[in-house]
């Protein structure tokens, strides 16, 4: 049956709460309303206001309390209402959530999931359209999960909630309403494994999150040019499955990293560097990066110009082939 990513996430939270009464879900407007994107819809009704509840507008307080709850046996799943609202909680995430385990020599384990609806494409503006992943990928101690399709959204969220490590869970909000034929619950590959979404021989598109669909569409369109593109969906950024990427590039000889975040010092730089280090002799062209421009997120009317799309991906493929 056709399931949207929003439904998949909602079902994952529901199933996790049913499976484990230590799972609590909270954040701004998460309880009574069910979240501004309805990802927590009806969870309070089903599990009660102790396990799914609203908080004051206090992101540092939300993540901070999650740390304290996790110290004492709970598995909090907190929602940052929008990507930009994560920044007031940045200190708790990077200084404590990520580091308490190390600092306490493994005696404090923090199984917290911070859900962040992220990225643009919905006509919002800055603070509501951001791609904050590289802030978090550069912080050791966090796992960074970035599903691109509904099945993964369900399965990876379940695994994230079960993880003993803290997880920053990036939900591509423009894909909340994208559908996939599935029967939930579903198992997919674990956290830390990338998947070849579409096999091909001409070049490898390495991507994640919202750009998985864009890359698959680009691969379809590329057939008209006679290009057979392989699409690797990273699914998780930390841990990063470099092997799957390198294996793919070894087959195709060309690599492009596609993400919605800005190119400059974005996560694609890490992927490109790793491909360069491990697949240098397989490369027919430099690893190219396709992403947003390095500017503050533009007004909604310029969004289409800012965000990578099928044409931008195909232009880059052409550039790689002409090298």
């Amino acid at each position, binding site marked *: 049956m056709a399931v949207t990513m929003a439904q998949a996430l909602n079902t994952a939270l529901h199933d996790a709460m049913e499976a484990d009464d230590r799972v609590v879900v909270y954040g701004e407007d998460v309880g009574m309303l069910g979240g501004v994107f309805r990802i927590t819809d009806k969870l309070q009704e089903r599990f009660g206001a*102790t396990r799914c509840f609203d*908080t*004051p507008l*206090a992101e*540092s*307080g939300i*993540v*901070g*309390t*999650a*740390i*304290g*709850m*996790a*110290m*004492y*046996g*709970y598995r*909090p799943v907190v929602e940052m209402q929008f990507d930009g609202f994560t920044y*007031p909680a940045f*200190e*708790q995430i990077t*200084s*404590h959530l990520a580091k*308490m*385990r*190390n*600092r*306490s*020599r*493994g*005696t*404090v*384990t923090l199984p917290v999931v911070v859900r962040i609806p992220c990225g643009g494409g919905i006509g919002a503006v800055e603070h509501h359209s951001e791609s904050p992943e590289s802030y978090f990928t550069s912080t*050791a*101690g966090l*796992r960074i999960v970035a599903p691109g399709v509904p099945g993964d959204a369900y399965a990876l969220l379940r695994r994230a909630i079960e*993880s*003993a*490590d803290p997880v920053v869970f990036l939900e591509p909000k423009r894909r909340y309403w994208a559908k996939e034929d599935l029967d939930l619950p579903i198992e997919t590959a674990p956290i*830390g494994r990338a998947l070849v979404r579409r096999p091909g021989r001409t070049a490898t598109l390495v991507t994640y999150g919202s750009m998985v669909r864009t890359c698959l569409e680009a691969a379809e369109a590329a057939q008209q040019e006679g290009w057979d593109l392989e699409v690797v969906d990273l699914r998780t950024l*930390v*841990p*990063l499955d*470099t092997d799957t990427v390198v294996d793919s590039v070894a087959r195709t000889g060309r690599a492009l990293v596609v993400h919605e975040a800005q190119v400059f010092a974005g996560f694609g730089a890490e992927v490109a560097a790793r491909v360069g280090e491990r697949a240098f002799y397989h490369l027919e062209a430099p690893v190219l990066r396709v992403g947003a421009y390095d500017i503050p997120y533009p007004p909604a009317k310029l969004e289409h110009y800012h965000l990578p799309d099928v044409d931008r991906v195909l232009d880059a493929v052409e550039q790689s082939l002409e090298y």
Partner: protein
Amino acid sequence: MTAGNGTVQWLHDRYADMRRIRRFEDITYTLFRRGTLDGTAHMAAGQEAVAVGARAALGADDYVFSTYRCHHHVIAAGAPMDRCFAELLQRRTGLCGGKGGSMHLTSVEHGVMGSYAIVGSQLPIACGAAWSAHIRGTGGVAVAFFGDGATNIGAFHEALNLAAVWRLPAVFVCENNLYAEFTAIATSINVEHPAYDRAPAYGMPAAIVDGNDVEAVHEAVATAVGRARDGDGPTLLEAKTYRRYGHSRIDPADYRPDEEEETWFARDPLTVTRRRLDELGVEASRVDETDERVGREVDEALETAMQAPEPEVGDAFADVYAEGGAGWRS
């Protein structure tokens, strides 16, 4: 005498607890001066009564959250001093295996759930612990210590509001030593009492307490803990106190007026308690014996710590993640 369990011995024991911390801090300072310790440390000498008085009001199911000035809380909680020294010395036997250092002393088994070097961070975390105790019905209370400087940071206000609105079993203890690092707190707030005066905004009961009087601190914290255990929610306490040393090891605290130092040093918690013991008829020689006994304990702890092994390179990569390790990132 009404404080503690009402006995002279109780007060004498608290005196010993405070003396133990003072000795630990004095030695720590000396170790820095000699170059034996790396990094920095924030001595809590002068503030012992807050930690010791508060701890005496807590039980095994209660939690303590501290700041970068944390030695007194951790020692008061009963953490072995050799492991405290070892942590400062970055030895493998340290409370955090040498990874945390002076500012991050943590001892889960003693209920000290971390010391936080980012000002104010521990307050929301303590709220989460209190929430957990409340929902699980353990009767446990979370106590968050913080300095006067923390009352100007957002996390303080978020946490106070959360605790009040969720009616959490939490006690917030401000150690107001008059200085936020090197800056007089009086120059950075527009109220007289940095913590106490903010409490009404959150509808939270609050009290000011003499932070150099271990009995007074104990009584105030015991009252607050009792309220929390009874389901009556959080309390904010502001303990007025003063540090013997500067903000950190390099700070001679030249910015403090001489008269101010003289006034406060005359009210040193050890002096105050010694005088009280004298009034209660405890012979000076018995208190001297306590000084000597406790001094030996601390000296022996240091010796043990000095013998402990230093961390190995692999330790830096251990415990970053529960699953999968950290080595692949580098």
